[in-house]
């Protein structure tokens, strides 16, 4: 084991490491693209499912105007390609109350199915987002740590944007009515 063999082995080792890091970056980029497409896939599933659920539940919920309105709003959002999960999470507790107080509805499989499927579509959108967040975090972290960042700079890998959380929208605004302390008459 003279000096040249040792040096040769070290160079081989460094090259092997470089190759494995490069492959990781390339693979991660592909997976991030796939997970973005998956989010679109789940939103499309939601968009196709909500109208079906709406029509099947209308027969049972003829008197529940606010629930039907929320369902219609959710359908409008998903038709526009946006995520209807916030409307659905508003809807589910109301539906739960109606079902609990109405024994006829409680027994109806259709309503139970409706609630389960609505929750499931929101969950699926959330999980597909989570996958994207985790993949982007791993990729960006590896970009920044030493010595992998040397490989990244050598081949020109840039940080991925990941999930663009909305910087404006209803969930960030607090209305005056939320701030007022409620008065209780004892």
């Amino acid at each position, binding site marked *: 084991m003279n000096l040249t063999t040792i040096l040769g082995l070290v160079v081989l080792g460094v090259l092997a490491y470089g190759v494995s890091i490069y492959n990781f970056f390339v693979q991660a980029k592909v*997976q991030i693209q796939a*997970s973005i497409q*998956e989010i679109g896939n*789940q939103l499309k599933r939601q968009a196709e499912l909500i109208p079906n659920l709406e029509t099947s539940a209308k027969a049972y919920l003829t008197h529940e105007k606010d629930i039907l309105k929320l369902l219609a709003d959710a359908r409008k959002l998903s038709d526009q390609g946006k995520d209807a999960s916030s409307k659905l999470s508003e809807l589910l507790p109301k539906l739960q109350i109606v079902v609990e107080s109405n024994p006829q509805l409680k027994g109806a499989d259709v309503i139970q199915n409706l609630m389960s499927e609505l*929750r*499931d579509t929101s*969950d*699926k959108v*959330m*999980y*597909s987002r*989570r*996958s994207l967040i*985790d*993949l982007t975090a791993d990729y960006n972290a590896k970009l920044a740590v030493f010595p992998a960042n040397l490989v990244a700079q050598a081949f020109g890998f840039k940080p991925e944007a990941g999930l663009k959380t909305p910087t404006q929208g209803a969930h960030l605004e607090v209305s005056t009515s939320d701030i007022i302390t409620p008065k209780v008459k004892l």
Partner: protein
Amino acid sequence: MQNIYESSVNSRRKSNYIVAGFSVFALVASYFLASALSYYLFGFYDGLFAIGLALLITGLSSFGSYYYSDKIIVGISGARRADEHEFKLFYQVIDNLSLGSNIHRPALYVIDDTAMNAFAAGRDPDHSLVCSTTGLLANLNRSELEAVFAHELTHIKNYDTRLMSLAAVMVGSITLMADWLLRIGLRSRRGKDSGAGIITLVIGILAALLAPVIGQLLQLAISRSREYMADVGSVKITRQPSSLISALTIIDHDLERLEAANKSTAHLYFTNPFHQDSSFKAEFNRPGLDWFAGLFNTHPPISDRIKALSQMS
């Protein structure tokens, strides 16, 4: 309070320490055992042949059980394929979790038993399965089921079957060499007269008696550390420590035995099927015996798991 990334790094680091310690132990024990063995067999200290032979025998005999681990465990446990219509919630939960953890959906199996437990098996994420008892599916709500199956999916993602199989091969080959040494070395005339021979005999016997036990204890320690890692991984997928805590609390109170489990498969399950990790089983809760008995446990105590989860935000 730790955030999920800190918990992830810490639990992985602890597990790596134990695996490193196990590797060092395996090397040292193999070295001493093989040296002593070759001294008695051939008259000189060259362990390589003995180590090689032991690894070959153990490796070959274990390879089948590693490669076909999913089919074997299904056969032993009497599990049946879960029907998609009968177990719609099971399929929905696993689908969502696979989406969230970026792996292909594993095959789903069910054991007909009212005891609450689940396990995951398979040599890599593409050849994996998750099995649940019908009792678990009936008694936990959706969030709790998500937490339990996220734990199982983390086992799959961490290649825990592969790690435990490797550990089993190492302990198996050490046990094999220890067995040979005790049979051959004690009968050999070679060493009993010289000084070096006596020392080899003494060290060899000590190693042969202690190494298998220490190896098994280390293997169990690895198993427990992977359970903690899987709990952290579950929270990483679901971001809801409360649902896993709730599931563990419910399972802790259920002391029913799982008939399908036996000692060789106990380590695979979500909680110990003989309830050695339970907070309520009286015979395991004697203060002086706790730490020592705990060393032989495949799973950490459920109360410790809940405490670790409560530390996560």
